[in-house]
């Protein structure tokens, strides 16, 4: 297996009295697509936010390409972030900017590309996510699926080495969800990026993941490839795959 591009060691994170991560260890090998599955509120997005340096752990370390992320200075952290892209759950497009401005923001701020070059890259990235002719539209004019696609185009605009996806298929219809799964696969094929996806969508996880981990009560309790996931006897994984209320997962109402 390739060396890890991102590594989380013994991570602890609490919000008030609520303990979200309790000694989490996770490693993402370069070039792989890791899917982190877990129930809603299990702390999946919190893991992503630690990976990109939006949150600092209470205890533990986060390494990106060998650099200890949680102790880096702002300038160095920004240098690392230029090598990552993130697709947010609600796409988090900038309301006041057009689609083209959203996608090109990173290029404008961090490169010396000409307007012409920026336009070319923006169009190419939008085409890569299956969109064309939407450059001048505002985010409010787009459907949920289109917003996610624009979010993805923005995430890959700077050709990152690592793309983080926060619930890419949640809240959209199954057909658009499958189209987004294909986009994730295409992105990996076309740009060779490492991906980390958090989701509770089992079908999506099995389709796009080369590695799948299950998060339960703040720790990864199972990791394996899709075949291993399908064939495991682990009761937590089985319950999750079957979508059953009966099993070892604690239910909270």
């Amino acid at each position: 297996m390739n060396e890890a591009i991102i590594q989380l060691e013994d991570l602890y994170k609490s919000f008030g009295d609520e303990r979200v991560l309790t000694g989490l260890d996770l490693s993402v090998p370069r070039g792989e697509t890791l899917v982190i599955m877990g129930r809603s509120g299990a702390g999946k997005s919190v893991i992503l936010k630690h990976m990109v340096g939006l949150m600092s752990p209470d205890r533990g370390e986060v390494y990106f390409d060998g650099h200890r992320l949680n102790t880096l200075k702002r300038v160095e952290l920004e240098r690392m972030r230029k090598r990552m892209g993130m697709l947010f759950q609600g796409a988090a497009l900038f309301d006041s900017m057009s689609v083209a401005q959203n996608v090109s923001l990173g290029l404008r701020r961090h490169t010396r590309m000409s307007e012409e070059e920026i336009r070319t890259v923006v169009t190419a990235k939008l085409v890569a996510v299956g969109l064309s002719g939407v450059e001048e539209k505002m985010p409010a004019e787009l459907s949920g699926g289109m917003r996610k696609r624009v979010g993805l185009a923005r995430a890959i605009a700077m050709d990152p080495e690592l793309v983080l996806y926060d619930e890419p298929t949640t809240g959209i219809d199954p057909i658009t969800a499958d189209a987004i799964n294909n986009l994730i696969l295409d992105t990996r094929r076309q740009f060779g990026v490492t991906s980390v996806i958090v989701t509770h969508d089992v079908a999506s996880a099995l389709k796009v993941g080369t590695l799948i981990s299950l998060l339960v009560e703040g720790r990864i309790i199972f990791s394996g490839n899709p075949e291993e996931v399908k064939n495991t006897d682990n009761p937590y994984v089985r319950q999750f795959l079957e979508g059953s209320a009966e099993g070892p997962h604690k239910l909270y109402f």
Partner: protein
Amino acid sequence: MLTLFSRLGENVLGRFYRLGEASILMLRVLGELPYIWSMRQEIVSQMMRIGIGSFPLVTVTSLFTGMVLAVQTSYQIEEYVPQVFIAAAVCKAIIIELGPVITALVISGRVGASITAELGTMRVTEQIDALETMAVDPVRYLLLPRITAGLVMMPVIVTFACVVAISGAYTVSLLYLKMSGQVFFLGMRQFVYPYDVYSGLLKSFIFGGTISMVGCYYGFCTSKGAVGVGRATTQSVVTNCLLILVFDYFLAMLLFPAV
């Protein structure tokens, strides 16, 4: 009783926490000053939004403030002092006090609230997080242009407001109070000093900074969804109004000390 003290303590600590949080945020904005030139486009766009967009509202409020001030001053002291003093009192009051303060209160409602609501929405919809992940510092990209625009545009808006208010007072003096234009301008020329104008401008500069900083702080630190945005916007306007009045008092004490 214990609960009461505990709540009181929590409240006081909370206020100190927010003060500390706001101070740290403003220090971060100061730290971004070397990059001000690179943000010029954003600054100009915010100046247009804060300044140009406020002119219609400021025109109406200033015009009526000036007009009512002329009527009230005349009604109160016409019997005891010559008309030239009425004109002087009206112009002086507009330039050193009512122009900056009323405009600041109006702008805090329009611009301060809008800054908080915009940044608050960006915070709760993860747009600010998205900026961070794109290695774009939100303090530099969002706060620096808004605060700079507030500081620069407020004196411009207040100057405009004073001109409109004095025009309103002049019109009422001519048409309703039967004062001659010569008397009005004589009063203004003899009793309004450059120091009054500088004081008014200094006040407006400080109010502009206050409005944009408070607006940015509450917006940037918003949490808890749409309810949080609503709460932050209300807190922003209330805090701004209070600070404007408190700062106005201390500035008056400082700029116009009793002899």
